[in-house]
């Protein structure tokens, strides 16, 4: 039991960006800050492994050596102020070593100045609404029909045959690569949360409050997330899909949407 957990912990370190079903670790993601977030995660993790090896190591040695069945006579010592001081100070030092890089990353996460574009994200029970402030387009993003049909109780459809089951939408959020995108997040009804692992973003959307988040995607691709705050019966059925495309492809997409969509009120 103990050894199994241990080996799993070790394996975790070696399987960094495995995307298959037996994925063991967090994705490194596609922004500079998602990589920093991953590094913080691994930093704390390795410290825990180190402390675990020491503490569990001593315990395991003791469990084998200091048994009555080995015929040992128990010692009688019951305290040591020196030991207490040492094993109080060393953890404090370790925590300080962890705290410094963590604080540096936190400061960067909050810096949403000078964005290239702003998108207002409004959460609904149970879908998302996106409004591009400068481009003047807006639309709802809901669970894709293929998933919607398969998700019903005893639907008879095998989820394994549905592409991106429960993580596909009808209209994804399209953004250009290398643009600093600022999100303004709120909700129309209850608290939801906008969460895309590969952007390392999770921000609660709260009725009456506008929250802010930002990202700068470095790689083209499709990235999927989900609502991350219990919001009622279809909390598990309001996914998020972000498509990062080259800047000219983004412009073409904006133009196409503007032409096709009914007139939307321009951004205020």
């Amino acid at each position, binding site marked *: 039991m103990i050894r199994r957990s241990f080996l799993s912990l070790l394996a975790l370190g070696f399987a960094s960006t495995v995307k298959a079903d037996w994925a063991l670790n967090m994705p490194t993601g596609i922004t500079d800050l998602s990589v920093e977030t991953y590094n913080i995660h691994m930093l704390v993790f390795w410290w825990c492994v180190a*402390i675990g090896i020491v503490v569990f190591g001593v315990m395991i040695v*003791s469990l084998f050596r200091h048994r009555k069945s080995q015929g040992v006579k*128990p010692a009688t010592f019951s305290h040591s102020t020196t030991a207490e001081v040492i094993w109080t100070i060393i953890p404090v030092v370790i925590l300080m070593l962890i705290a410094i890089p*963590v604080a540096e990353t936190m400061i960067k996460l909050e810096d949403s100045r000078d964005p290239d574009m702003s998108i207002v994200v409004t959460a609904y029970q149970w879908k998302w609404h996106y409004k591009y402030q400068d481009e003047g387009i807006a639309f709802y993003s809901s669970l894709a029909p293929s998933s919607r049909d398969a998700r019903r109780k005893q639907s008879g459809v095998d989820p394994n045959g549905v592409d991106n089951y429960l993580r596909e939408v009808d209209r994804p959020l399209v953004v250009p690569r290398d643009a600093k995108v600022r999100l303004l997040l709120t909700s129309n009804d209850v608290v939801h949360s906008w969460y895309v692992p590969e952007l390392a973003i*999770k921000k609660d959307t709260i009725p009456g*409050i506008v929250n802010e988040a930002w990202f700068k995607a470095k790689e083209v691709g499709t990235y999927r997330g989900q609502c991350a705050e*219990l919001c009622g019966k279809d909390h598990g059925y309001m996914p998020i899909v972000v498509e990062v495309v080259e800047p000219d492809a983004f412009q073409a997409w904006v133009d196409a949407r503007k032409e096709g969509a009914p007139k939307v009120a321009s951004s205020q």
Partner: protein
Amino acid sequence: MSTTVADLHDHHEDHGPAKGIGRWLFSTNHKDIGTMYLVFSLTMLFVGGAMALVIRSELAIPGLQFVHPEFFNSMTTMHALIMVFGAVMPAFVGLANWMIPLMIGAPDMALPRMNNWSFWILPVAFSILLSTLFMPGGAPASGWTMYPPLVLQTGNAFPFLIFSIHLMGISSIMGAINVIVTIINMRAPEMTLLKMPMFVWTWLITAYLLLAVMPVLAGAVTMLLTDQFFGTSFFLAAGGGDPVMFQHIFWFFGHPEVYIMILPAFGVVSEIIPTFSRKPLFGHDSMVYAAASIAFLSFIVWAHHMFTVGMPLTGQMFFMFATMLIAVPTGVKVFNWVATMWRGAMTFETPMLFSLAFVFLFTIGGFSGLMLAAAPADIQYHDTYFVVAHFHYVLVPGSIFAIMAAVYYWLPKWTGHMYNETLGKAHFWASTIFVNLTFFPMHFLGLAGMPRRIPDYSTQFTDFNTVASIGAIGFGLSQLIFVWVLVTAYRGEKALDRVWEGSHGLEWTVPSPAPYHTFDTPPKARIANEAFE
């Protein structure tokens, strides 16, 4: 006055328990009330466990097979409410009732009639809560955290949810008062505070935590009630209120609450490891200070449950650093337990097995807690299965294993017979293997991005979910071994007064089974003999 006292005393000389149901309904005896709390808590463990099995059955494979999403949300909500308020907390109160008077040399709790009420409120409260499963709109389904505005969408069950929580809170507050007054006032004369056993110390600290935070929970749910029915807007933005304020108030209760659920466990393990190591607890005074530090720190970390609400940077930093600090006194306790074992002469009876598993597995839960404390990383972990893994590690192989260790440890004192050690070990190994099978994969699910509180999931999460569900079924079935141990508890050989060779403490100076009334007169010389020094 003195004649009356003498008369009462004479009548009590050969007075055993009352006959019939009255013995239990009107009990003012700490042993009977302790037994009732423990039986109630075991029942609730199975009720909450059944709900967990509904959850894990649905999550075994992708697709929705058994329940509708609304009912699934009710199951997660009720599972947590039942386990937290119906299984873990009452179990520790039951242990406190049985053991605190015995450990301090007191004849009973300070307020025996209030003690009776503290218990009997609970079956009423949980009948009300469980009855909501049958109401229009179903049982509450907004999570045990009851965040508004979602919780205000609860159907007819809403006022019953609030009322049952108020009742549970009143029970806890009265119990806490009883514990504090008993410990402060009724210790045997030679037992100074720092001579008290660790189980008593951790319960003293826990009782203060309960007094401080249960009223805060009561306030929070009352504000929900008035928002729903009486036109207030504490948490409704349209009326000028703030949904996030609820989260602050709830977690100001909620974080000390989880320490309420673990401190007595620390106390239990601090009793058992020295006994089976045949060596004094290492650093007894240090352990007291560490427990007190943990309790103090528990008040200033609550917003680490809220790193994604849009908190200012300074707030995030403060709560992150304060949370990381709790690792220090907690680590001190783990090191002290290991130092107790070191160069002892250990044997591995069932209570010791559960206590050792506690140290290993609670520490793993502590590691994931430290990872969660790092706010930027928590952005990725929050509301995913990584959190579910963390708190189940500290609560199941943490609190629940400590409760089971305590039951195996003190059962022979309660019944006068040794339980079946082979079955106990079987229960232990089955529970340990299955608990890890259930909860360890959840770390990976969380890291891969699977959110909490969803009834169905994207297919890449299948394999670990299936393993977890198999583990859950195994863990549930393993608890039937425990029931069998308890049912056959009176069959084993007669237990000695000092059931365990290496034990120390006043509870081992009374006969096994402990007589209905003990320490009618305070013990004297026994205190010095029972101390390790």
